[in-house]
């Protein structure tokens, strides 16, 4: 009986490359590899620079140069990795090299906070993509969740430091942005948890917990940001106006891109957000005209958040192509309506709005986690199954 497997064994052992052939092939192949280095694919720094203040832009200008130096020295390192997800060939390159390099060349508390918040967002994007493609397993879930938590935590700490340094406005803007990102991803992940067979509830719970923390932090910061002199307030409002305009522009271009690739259905929720954002912007402009700065600021901030939601939604839709209809606009409007009246005085209603989510969260915690062992290479025939016992090397 075993004799036939001797045959296979002999073939495996003796029919192979000779050392000289292998060396020759290795040389030829790695010459080829050297001549074809990995290429450049994605650049988020431009976008970040647009969002930043003028001092920031100055700093970012030097970042590409530093990066290019590193790329040249390392023989063309590895930007294809930017789109990798855990489990992919290039994912270690993305997290352990690309992201590390950028961390090294990111100076200043603000850009560091921004970058760490972006890193945590990347982990969520990866989790969503994996879940949508049914490639998420328990190990990856744990890894992604831990990294997300660590990076989000780091961003939060840096925002707290900004606040301590007296950069209250910047801290408030960053915090709002992070909250926004979390909110959008919470919606996407919640929908994935319902529709996909994959167990993503662990990540969902974590995102919800962090979101809660962020909401509380934002309320705290907004109150402080509101205690400003009127001249300073006017300046702040005008900055907010510029940011709102930029953000709306970015959302529009993201929507246009997604729409051109996936059709108008895919950008419905993004468009609803954008329209709501434009509405707030118009109101804000009117308030600014009338020199009612506090109201204008609130409206601009709402416009920025909604436009940013629209942008994230459109981009993520393009990544996953889920065509899921996420009721984010309603959700956001409901959550925000409280800050219309409450800005500067604590935002107690906001807390109430969250309580609903908390209940939701608790019930979700009770759902038991099913671990499905993915059978790698499941045999389709019972005969073959039996033959397994006689496989080579056993």
């Amino acid at each position, binding site marked *: 009986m075993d*004799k*036939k*497997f*001797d*045959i*296979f064994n*002999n*073939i*495996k052992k*003796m*029919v*192979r*490359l*000779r050392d000289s*052939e*292998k060396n020759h*092939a*290795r040389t*030829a*192949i*790695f010459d*080829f*590899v050297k001549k*074809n*280095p*990995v*290429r450049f*694919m994605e650049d988020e720094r431009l976008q970040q620079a647009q969002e930043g203040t003028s001092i920031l832009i100055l700093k970012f200008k030097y970042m590409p140069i530093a990066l290019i130096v590193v790329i040249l*020295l*390392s*023989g*063309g*390192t*590895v930007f*294809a*990795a930017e*789109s*990798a*997800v855990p*489990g*992919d*060939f*290039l994912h*270690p*390159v993305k997290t*352990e*090299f690309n992201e590390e390099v950028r961390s090294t060349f990111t100076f200043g508390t603000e850009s560091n906070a921004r970058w760490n918040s972006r890193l945590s967002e990347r982990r969520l994007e990866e989790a969503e993509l994996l879940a949508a493609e049914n*490639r998420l397993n328990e190990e990856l879930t744990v890894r992604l969740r831990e990294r997300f938590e660590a990076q989000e935590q780091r961003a939060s700490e840096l925002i707290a430091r900004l606040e301590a340094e007296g950069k209250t406005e910047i801290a408030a803007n960053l915090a709002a942005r992070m909250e926004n990102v979390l909110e959008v991803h919470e919606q996407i992940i919640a929908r994935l948890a319902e529709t996909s067979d994959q167990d993503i509830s662990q990540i969902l719970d974590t995102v919800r917990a962090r979101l809660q923390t962020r909401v509380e932090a934002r309320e705290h910061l907004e109150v402080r940001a509101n205690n400003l002199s009127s001249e300073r307030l006017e300046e702040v409002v005008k900055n907010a106006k510029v940011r709102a305009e930029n953000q709306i522009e970015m959302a529009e271009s993201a929507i246009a891109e997604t729409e051109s690739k996936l059709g108008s259905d895919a950008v419905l929720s993004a468009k609803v957000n954008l329209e709501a954002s434009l509405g707030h912007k118009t109101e804000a402009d009117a308030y600014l005209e009338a020199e009612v700065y506090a109201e204008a600021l609130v409206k601009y901030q709402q416009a920025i958040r909604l436009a940013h939601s629209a942008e994230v939604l459109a981009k993520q839709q393009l990544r996953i192509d889920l065509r899921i209809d996420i009721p984010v606009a309603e959700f956001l409007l409901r959550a925000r309506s409280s800050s219309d009246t409450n800005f500067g005085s604590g935002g107690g209603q906001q807390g109430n709005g969250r309580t609903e989510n908390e209940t939701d969260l608790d019930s979700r915690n009770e759902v038991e986690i099913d671990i499905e062992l993915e059978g*790698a*290479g*499941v*045999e*389709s*025939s019972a*005969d*073959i199954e039996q*033959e397994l016992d006689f*496989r*080579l090397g056993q």
Partner: protein
Amino acid sequence: MPNNNLAEKEFERLFEQYSDSIFRHCLFKVSHRETALDIMQETFKRVWLKIIEGEKLDNQKAFCFRIANNLIIDFYRKSKAISLDSLEVEPAVEKGELNPSEQADLQIAIETIKSLGERYREAVLLRYVEGFSVKEIAEISGESENVISVRINRGLSKVKEIINPEV
């Protein structure tokens, strides 16, 4: 350079791990050592190009084999099909280095495999020499899993017949 670079290192590991298998697969298909070597090299170059394009390699080994198979098909299209009788399967070591009993074993092994039809041969080799699952073989060869199961079973029966004609 210390980081020069993870992708290359990973690719090198892939080459060390699978070059023999790919070569063997090509050799049994094209029956010509030099050609098999060329196709194996070309396979790894294509794999690298896929990697730098950002292709997702869920199953690296099966992915390499799929590329090799496509190259083999190209090769057959370009040149006249080579008779399988001329199958040139020489041992990895120089012949003198094998002792007579090893030489005999290898001869039997090769004769046995050669006597299988091409389809059975591919399925059986991929299954029992390279250790692929039925599903993976189906992906590599573009056939259904059922077809592959049947080929493996029939191929294996033939091997048994050849080894133990009396059974």
